């Protein structure tokens, strides 16, 4: 019995010496000691020495949560020859000292918890983990900057990696940006070389215009079906010359890439630097596909790449690791009627502003009002549109979208650079600019460029003739402001991609209340999902700017490389096991298993009279089982058990607790 002080974390509330003393007289306990930090090297040495000196069969460590240091103590025990599953943790920190104030009560509870752990330990038996192989190929879902960077880093280490991207091209949101903060270098100049690198890297395969259809298997051994949507253009034949897009008679389709601010044809290449640079036919608008009339693209294509009969294709592939990089979308501003977005084309979102200032955008980089293509003299930026919203409003998001303060400062500066005489206002709740060179950047906007930062929110925007009447409050001067603006830019909150939820279900990966992917530990395991073998990269995990996304992409890649570099993976031995004598083959356990680890087999069993009889029983695939215990709870005959957490062990703990409290 090893009782940890955890500095004053435990010892401040629990009389650790009293716990150790009480446990000395507990049946089965031959050694009981305390130490300041059991997890430290000297603490571990105490444990190792005791195991050797007393030839211990098992140990109980009264310390913090097993999530924290169970692995540490198991490793220590196993280094001196003890089976690591003969180590039990009594959590007397999170579940005792941290939540109680009264020293006497806390001490008595700690003793109870220690007794329960001893009772369980008496029924423990050594467990040996199984092993499985690793498929040396990774899957990256999402081809934005997060996915591209992750794939490049994994490929660089010499592993095969596939990118699945739902749009016809990789590049994601970053491809739509004009300049990037805080250096104002152009997004395309730093992104497009990476896109080309990804396309040319022999370790990378890009499935563009594709989606993940289904996922099965487990860490090291995932089987994924990718749906390659029919693009009606042979990808390996198309040269990307663009002749078809010029000749296509259907030209009035709002361009996705330019956010509907200009049009594209029914057969199109999303933008000039698209990767792969291959045309795609939009089946919703193509007259040939809809009415079997036209066929112009097929006639003009010299390469013969057009194929109207193409069907969706399903590709099955095995992967050792999966990286989610599904990114974000700006929220819909439908419920923000006060900003009059539906009433005036001169109320735009920040992403639309990016397209307006981009040299490759609908105006070739000329910043003009969408309504009359005139120069805007007064531009109002509104931050936190849908971010940091009160939940009672029933619209918007409670969280801070994090990137808006910086890109709004960037937009304000770009406006001033193009039109030094323009009046530029930024309305904000708070300006949040932590990050390297970020605050300096914002101050440059305010101080050098003369952008007028006003603390307060815009309450209403009213189209008034050709201009926009912006009603706002200035909280510092305690004034109501009315500004006549030519252009209003709304910094819409960002939310996870709408495709993320369905994907999370397929991956059995969890999401938080806002729909962002959950990390295994918010501080210590930020790029791993709680599902083994699934990693997170970029804004799918939370609002994130480009520098952070690239850093996280590298971190996720490092985790993947670490996994793929292993020849064999050690599985968790605490898995379900079926007592076939008791199993009735009722299928309840198979139905509740979230991992598909349970199958049913016919087996011969001896029956009285020296005969045998075939019976259907459950069988657990130990490599797939994650040890969640659902089956053990659901089993009506008590045949299903979880190793390391057998019913008898749990009941022994309960008994020990009840005995003490009586």
């Amino acid at each position, binding site marked *: 019995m090893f009782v940890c002080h955890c500095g004053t974390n435990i010892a401040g509330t629990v009389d650790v010496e009293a716990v150790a003393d009480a446990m000395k007289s507990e049946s089965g306990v031959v050694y009981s000691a305390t130490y300041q930090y059991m997890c430290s090297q000297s603490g571990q040495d105490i444990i190792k020495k005791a195991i050797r000196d007393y030839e211990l069969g098992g140990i109980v460590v009264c310390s913090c949560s097993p999530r924290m240091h169970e692995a540490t103590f198991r490793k220590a025990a196993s280094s001196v020859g003890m089976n690591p599953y003969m180590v039990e943790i009594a959590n007397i920190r999170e579940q005792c000292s941290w939540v109680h104030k009264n020293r006497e009560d806390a001490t008595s509870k700690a003793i109870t918890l220690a007794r329960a752990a001893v009772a369980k330990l008496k029924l423990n038996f050594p467990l040996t983990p199984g092993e499985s192989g690793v498929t040396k190929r990774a899957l990256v879902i999402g081809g934005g900057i997060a996915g591209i960077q992750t794939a490049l880093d994994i490929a660089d280490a010499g592993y095969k990696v596939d990118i699945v991207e739902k749009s016809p091209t990789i590049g994601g949101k970053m491809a739509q940006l004009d300049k990037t903060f805080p250096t104002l270098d152009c997004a395309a100049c730093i992104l497009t070389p990476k896109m080309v690198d990804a396309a040319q890297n022999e370790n990378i395969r890009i499935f563009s215009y594709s989606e993940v259809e289904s996922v099965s298997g487990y860490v090291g051994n995932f089987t994924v079906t990718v749906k390659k949507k029919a693009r009606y253009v042979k990808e390996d034949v198309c040269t990307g010359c663009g002749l078809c897009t010029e000749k296509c008679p259907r030209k009035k389709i709002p361009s996705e890439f330019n956010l509907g601010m200009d049009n594209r044809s029914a057969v199109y290449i999303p933008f000039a630097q698209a990767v792969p640079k291959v045309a795609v036919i939009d089946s919703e608008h193509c007259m040939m596909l809809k009415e079997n009339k036209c066929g112009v693209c097929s006639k003009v294509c010299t390469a013969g790449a057009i194929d109207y009969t193409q069907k969706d294709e399903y590709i099955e592939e095995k992967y050792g690791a999966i990286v989610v990089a599904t990114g974000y979308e700006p929220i819909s501003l*439908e*419920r*923000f*009627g*006060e900003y*009059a977005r*539906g*009433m005036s084309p001169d109320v735009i979102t920040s992403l639309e502003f990016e397209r307006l200032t981009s040299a490759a955008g609908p105006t070739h980089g000329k910043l003009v009002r969408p309504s009359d293509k005139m120069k805007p003299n007064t531009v109002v930026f509104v931050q936190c549109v849908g971010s940091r919203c009160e939940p*009672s*409003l*029933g619209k918007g998001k409670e969280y801070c979208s994090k990137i808006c303060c910086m890109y709004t400062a960037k937009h304000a500066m770009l406006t001033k650079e193009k039109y030094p005489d323009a009046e530029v206002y930024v309305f904000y709740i708070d300006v949040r600019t932590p990050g390297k060179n970020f605050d300096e950047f914002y101050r440059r906007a305010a101080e050098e460029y003369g952008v007028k930062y006003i603390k307060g929110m815009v309450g*209403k*925007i*009213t*189209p*008034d*003739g050709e201009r926009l009447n912006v009603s706002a409050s200035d909280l510092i001067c305690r004034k109501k402001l009315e500004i006549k603006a030519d252009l209003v830019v709304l910094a819409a909150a960002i939310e996870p991609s709408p495709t993320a939820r369905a994907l999370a279900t397929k991956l059995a990966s969890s999401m938080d209340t806002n729909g962002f992917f959950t990390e295994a530990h918010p501080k210590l395991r930020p790029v791993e999902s709680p599902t083994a073998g699934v990693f997170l990269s970029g804004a799918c995990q939370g609002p994130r700017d480009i520098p952070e996304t690239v850093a996280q992409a590298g971190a996720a890649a490092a985790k993947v490389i670490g996994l793929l570099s292993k020849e064999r993976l050690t599985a968790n031995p605490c898995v379900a096991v079926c007592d076939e004598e008791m199993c009735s083959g009722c299928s309840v356990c198979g139905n509740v298993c979230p991992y598909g680890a349970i199958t049913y087999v016919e087996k011969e069993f001896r029956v009285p009279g020296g005969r045998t009889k075939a019976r259907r029983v459950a069988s657990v695939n130990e490599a797939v089982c994650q040890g969640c215990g659902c089956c053990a709870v659901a089993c009506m005959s008590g045949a299903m058990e979880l190793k390391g957490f057998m019913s008898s062990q749990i009941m022994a703990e309960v008994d020990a607790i009840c005995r003490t409290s009586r």
Partner: protein
Amino acid sequence: MVKVSYYPGCTLKNKAKELDKYAVRCAEILGVEMEEIENWQCCGGVFCDSSDEVATKLSAVRALACAARRKTPLVTVCTACHNVIKRTLHALRYDAVFSERVRNYLGDEAKGAENAEVYHYLELLRDVVGFETLKGKVVNELKGKRVAAYYGCLFLRPGSVMQTDDAEDPRIMESFIKSLGAEPVIYPMRNECCGAYTFFEEKEAALKKGAAVLKSAENFGADLIAAACPLCRYNLESSSKSLPGGAEKKLPVVYFTELLAEALGVKEARYGM
């Protein structure tokens, strides 16, 4: 015939008779019998915002209790009354201190008030009658008229309590106007305040607010404005009179019930073609 309890409110019996009379007669045509509740009193009007005051809300509680006793929904036409009654109902349901104080005042008289169901006349048209049914009963389509609905504030706000429609981008009055055959005009100031009771203290401020609404509706090509609140109409009309220009240039402001009555043939055609 669907039976409902009807709370008219003071103004509808004096200055705004067009709201009351046409609402009741049109309802009959649409298969709704509006039965006035007995002994109703003033809703408390302007005092609705004094949240620490219970006495001004007792009239609303009585009206709610009366409708609950009759087991029929309570219908209002004036948006100010509607606001007071709806907010009182919300307080009865979710504010334990308030409901206890109400019980101390009224005893059994308040019984069941929190169970009442409250509809504004427009909600009655939308949710009980249905705009499609209404469309079918129209005999005199208001074709070609561009009607700007004026919501004001009390009909929609606070959004979480009123739950009538999206407070920032409402559609209920526009749908109503469409079902009469007219063309709704969506303009930005339709849910801004008309100046309300400031008219009697700071007339200039109120006139300015009203003028902004009129101008906005005019800019978006409205032929007339439809209001649901007597005070809104009064303020808009006062603002209109104070603006330069002859009477023929001015936007008429009417009650929505007048348009309804015209479309259903209850009232002689004035705004229809």
